[in-house]
């Protein structure tokens, strides 16, 4: 078992992020049992690798990064069918284009959207879009999200913006 300051930090802070990690796992896998397995494997890897963890750095981002990498490597390999449920095309629609309806229909729609609808809309997005939306929801900074996604800080903003535009698009589709 790994010990040392890294392990202490992980043991002390790790549990504080359990609900947030489980939430991402649940929205990545779409199933309770798979989400629990993914979270447990994430903590197993975190404790096993805790010696390499540098005390004082960001435990939260580190744990989310392990979770996402575990999901990508283990989960996709285990399943024959791809995780991505919906065509990626929608997410590539440039956010800077006029995707907002000028009328009040969308505002009204967003005010009335229920939990099951926003959940379904989120689950219909690709893995990366789901991840970036949820990390942003966890109050993570662009720097932290960049650590998790393993991408430059500069591209987090555009990825988040694309993902949110796709989410709005899905919600608008439901309204029709």
């Amino acid at each position, binding site marked *: *078992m790994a010990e040392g300051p890294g392990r202490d930090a992980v043991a002390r802070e790790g549990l504080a992020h359990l*609900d947030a990690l*489980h939430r991402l796992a649940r*929205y990545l896998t779409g199933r309770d*049992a798979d989400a629990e397995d993914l*979270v447990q494997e994430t903590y*197993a890897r975190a404790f096993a690798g805790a010696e390499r963890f540098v005390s004082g750095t960001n435990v939260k981002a580190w744990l989310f990064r392990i979770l996402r990498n575990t999901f990508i490597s283990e989960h996709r390999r285990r399943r024959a069918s791809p995780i991505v449920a919906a065509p990626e095309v929608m997410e590539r629609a440039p956010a*800077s284009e006029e995707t907002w309806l000028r009328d009040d229909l969308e505002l009204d729609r967003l005010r009335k959207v229920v939990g099951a609808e926003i959940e379904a809309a989120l689950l219909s997005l690709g893995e990366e879009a789901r991840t970036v939306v949820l990390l*942003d929801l966890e109050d993570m900074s662009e720097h932290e999200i960049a650590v998790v996604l393993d991408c430059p800080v500069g591209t987090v903003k555009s990825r988040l913006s694309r993902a*949110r535009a796709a989410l709005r698009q899905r919600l608008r589709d439901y309204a029709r």
Partner: protein
Amino acid sequence: MTLDCREVRNRLVDHLRGRLDADAQHELEAHLATCADCAHANEVERLLDDALEHRLPARPASAALRERIAAMSVPAPRRQWWRGALVPALAVAAALVLTVPALVYRQLASLRATATAAMVDEAVADHLRIAQAQRPLEVESGGIHQVRPWFEGRLDFSPVVPFDGDAVVPLRGGALAYFRDRRAAAFIYGLRQHTITLLVFRADGLPWPRTGLARIGGVDAYRTRERGFTVILWRAGDLGYALVSDADPAELTQIAARFSPGV
């Protein structure tokens, strides 16, 4: 107006997150006050945030998962004890041993008993999880020769199981499990209407009980009752074993003897 609409749209999320500095914030708000399109876009972003924050199901971790993760995060007390302060700890221990040996002995025994109880707890939790899972068996049994190879590549050890199951105690299948901080192979057997789970895992670094052991088969095993289940723990070589079931304790003990034959 120094900001164009495109820039404003790019900053709306930063604006909602409070990440803009005072000047940029002021500039953006001035633009929103005069541009209906951007004000609309801002309201859309705000409402989307509201829906995500307040209406998206939170999906928190279950109590059972929290318990399992908490158990993983606690290193064996005996090892944790020494950490960082070997010399002072030795000095204090020496002083205590010289003055009140009985107290120290009792203290150590109680630490160990607590740690052992955590192992027993974990074994029962694993058993329940497998028994109650919707799809408990990751590999359905066509016999031990099908189950054992399935674990290859999924574990960092080779699970040794001396008992292959028979007509009375048939092997139903296997699943990956966790025991504290490590992976475990779970072999699931039946006994009439009962389920028997045998967990096999690396034995090192765990707070194995040293007292209250009884000879079962070829090993010194620790047997206890917990939440209506009988739990039998033993080690053989580098591997640790936990046998859990709600079957009759005496019957389970006889079955345990077949998993731990005399050497």
